[in-house]
């Protein structure tokens, strides 16, 4: 069996497009004078940066859903945790410039009569520590959660429901003022990141490019995982978990690893999202957000990685346009998208393209078309 190349043609197209995007956008923003018709306003740079962060979230979700059959309805939780870790770093950078001028405590803590910084805030004044937490906190949660769930063979719908319960519980927890993380209002009013003012044009462009690079790296990591020998087992687990187990593999190990890496990627996406939108609040944990991320992947095509990223950008662009033009129509459109994609485009955009133009081997890697009566099929297998 020949090794699959790390970057296939579809990947080259994706990376080239991404690189071009990350070159053109800063050029049009910084290089073209403000009065010119070609000039790109800075707010659009941040908006595109937000799309790329969502694309990374979609990519992380595709890694578990498309390649290992775990439909996580709680990836927003990992995204939010990464975002909060970054938000805590940014809060600590405000220093005495807050409304209350307290050099140590963020404004909301002064307001809530905190006397000293809670222990879990210690260390967040260092970027390196915060960056570590962006990976470690979602990773650890995913590891513990996944290890428990996969070991006891919680699969399918049940897994989806408990991931949803997880993000719901986190949302309730972060809404509490006693949590010491800003409660309802979350963390906002950021000033500096690594010494550069967050609002400045240059910083925003840099954050945009950083998000693009993170997306490219995320793609390479996910690709590396899925084309390796490990990835082949992962796909085997997706398609026939009991059979893989009977062949002597431990599906729970493969799933836990994929789930943990995916959660870390979602955490990075959240961390890059927060400085670009300037706020993180418990609303990010809302179960609806996580489900919305699932539809990005479904639209783009699950099990294709490139498709997930593409789907996130397309759906969010549509959301920006529609909520601006016809606010009432957005939920109708999003709802219809869910229905139409599941009914008529189960493979998504990229999946449909592969099926049309791809090689037989590329087709074989797509998630199988579910049978109409898998109950009977599985009874036959198991």
């Amino acid at each position: 069996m020949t090794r699959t190349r790390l970057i296939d043609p579809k990947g080259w197209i994706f990376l080239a497009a991404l690189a071009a995007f990350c070159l053109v956008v800063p050029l049009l923003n910084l290089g073209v004078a403000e009065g010119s018709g070609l000039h790109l306003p800075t707010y659009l740079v941040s908006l595109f940066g937000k799309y790329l962060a969502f694309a990374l979230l979609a990519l992380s979700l595709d890694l578990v859903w498309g390649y290992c059959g775990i439909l996580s309805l709680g990836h927003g939780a990992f995204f939010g945790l990464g975002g909060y870790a970054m938000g805590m770093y940014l809060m600590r950078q405000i220093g005495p410039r807050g409304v209350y001028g307290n050099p140590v405590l963020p404004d909301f803590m002064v307001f809530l009569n905190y006397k000293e910084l809670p222990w879990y805030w210690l260390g967040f004044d260092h970027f390196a520590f915060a960056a570590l937490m962006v990976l470690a906190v979602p990773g650890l949660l995913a590891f513990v959660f996944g290890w428990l769930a996969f070991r006891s063979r919680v699969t399918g719908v049940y897994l989806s429901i408990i991931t949803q319960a997880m993000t719901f519980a986190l949302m309730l927890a972060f809404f509490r003022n006693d949590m010491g993380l800003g409660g309802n209002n979350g963390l906002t009013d950021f000033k500096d990141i690594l010494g550069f003012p967050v609002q400045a044009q240059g910083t925003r462009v840099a954050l945009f490019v950083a998000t693009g690079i993170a997306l490219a790296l995320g793609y390479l990591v996910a690709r590396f995982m899925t084309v390796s020998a490990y990835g082949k087992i992962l796909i085997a687990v997706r398609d026939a978990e009991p059979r893989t187990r009977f062949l002597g593999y431990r599906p729970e190990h493969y799933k836990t690893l994929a789930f943990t890496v995916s959660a870390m990627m979602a955490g990075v996406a959240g961390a890059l999202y927060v400085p670009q939108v300037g706020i993180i609040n418990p609303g990010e944990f809302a179960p609806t957000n996580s489900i919305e991320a699932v539809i990005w992947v479904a639209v783009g095509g699950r099990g294709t990685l490139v498709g997930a990223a593409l789907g996130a950008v397309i759906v969010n662009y549509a959301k920006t346009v529609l909520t601006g033009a016809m606010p009432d129509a957005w939920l109708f459109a999003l709802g219809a998208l869910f229905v139409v994609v599941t009914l008529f485009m189960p493979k998504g955009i990229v999946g449909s393209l592969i099926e049309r133009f791809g090689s037989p081997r590329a087709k074989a890697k797509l998630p199988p078309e579910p049978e109409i009566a898998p109950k009977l099929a599985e009874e036959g297998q198991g």
Partner: protein
Amino acid sequence: MIRIIILSLLLGLAAPAVAQDAVPADAYTRLASDSYGDIEAGIAALAASGDPRAGAVLSALGEGRLLYRPADKALFIKQGDALADARTGAPAQAEGLKPVRANNKIRRALDAAQGQLNLASPDAARRREAADAVFKARDPVALPALDAALARESDAGVKRALAAARAAVLLAKPGTPDAERLAALPSIQARGDGDAIAILRTVAASDPNETVKAAAGRGIQQVETRLAIAAAAQNVWYGVSLGSVLLLAAIGLAITFGVMGIINMAHGEMVMLGAYTTYLVQDAIRAHAPGLFDWSLAISIPCAFLVAGAVGVAIERGIIRFLYGRPLETLLATFGVSLILQQAVRSIFGPTNREVGSPGFMSGAFDLFGLSITWGRLWIVLFSLAVFLGLLFVLRKTAFGLKTRAVTQNRRMAAAMGIRTPWVDAMTFGLGSGIAGIAGVALSQIDNVSPNLGQGYIIDSFLVVVFGGVGNLWGTLVAALTLGVANKLFEPYFGAVLAKIALLVFIILFIQKRPRGLFALKGRAVES
């Protein structure tokens, strides 16, 4: 409290002094005065006299309708434009009248006096209220009236209240002998509420006699134990009430998810549709037949069932039937449907809450062994049980239920036996959705009827069904009640939000342990 006691003490001392200098000292003449001291003494004397006109005179004074003639100290009551003699009630004519004035002190004295008068009221509920008022005021002036009332009282409940009031007065009055104070304690204890504890605390802290102090201390412990049990029972009741709401929300899902295996994320929106149907039905009744308003909920139930059920059948025929056996895809598609339904309702009815009224029989509360139970909640508990039993009956005892179970267990075999499986699918899904609509009727009574109504229930409903065991209605019942009661029992210790989080974490961990819920179905049919 202490101020009132001091006040009544002063009053007790002042009254004889006033009595000495007013020569023909009857209550009516004392009232006819511009001295607040005289008026107050007059009120007390009138209340103690047992005069049948006393009530009318005192309420006239309270409302500023009592007038007097300074010349001969005659009293009159103004009734509209006419005057009446205060002593006899006969119509009268008079000139140069001045109103009997009242200040806050007088009004307090009036309240106490009216309390005394109520002690003799023929209505048991009013006597009891009066006794409670005396219990709270602890005015020694009321003692003779209390003794008289106790002697003639026949109702056991009122008698207990009177005894407690008398005991409270005795304990508050200085100079009560030790033995009487000791004897007074059990009656206070028998009341067994927060006020009783407050009185016992005062006694335990400041009584001069050690024996009385110790007895009061023991009394506090007993009352506190009883109160703790009552509070726990109240929490259990709240829990049952919450559990019944969860049951109502989840029971339709127990059909669509539990029996059919469809992840219906639009389930909450079926509940919402039911609530909006109730709103529309009430609106129509208000406009066309206001007399039927008390029946509005009963009329709404079949309407909500039909509306939500029809939408459910439409969803099943239009979307879900193409997705059988792909549970994760149904999840996404029905989530899309839920967004569309929410936005549709928002566009039609607006984003704000709609007002759904409660019929008369739903309002009010009653007292059961110290538990305060609201009628509305009680009806919802009973209603949810009725829905549960009705559903159980349909699934177990009817031909339709038999077909549903057959299709669930083995679709191909059922089809081979001549069951029209697509029809059964549509009807079963319609049944589950219709029951969600019925739940919406009940939930419209306790929740805001807004487009987001369903969102609040969907996660809880799924957790209830999963916790109880998919495909098992009894499991859903047990799970809903367990989660409801556990939530309310945790709440006093952790607060509402943490209690909820704790339960979510518990369910997540529980599913690791028993992935198929509390009451898992056994056999190969459920393995997929």
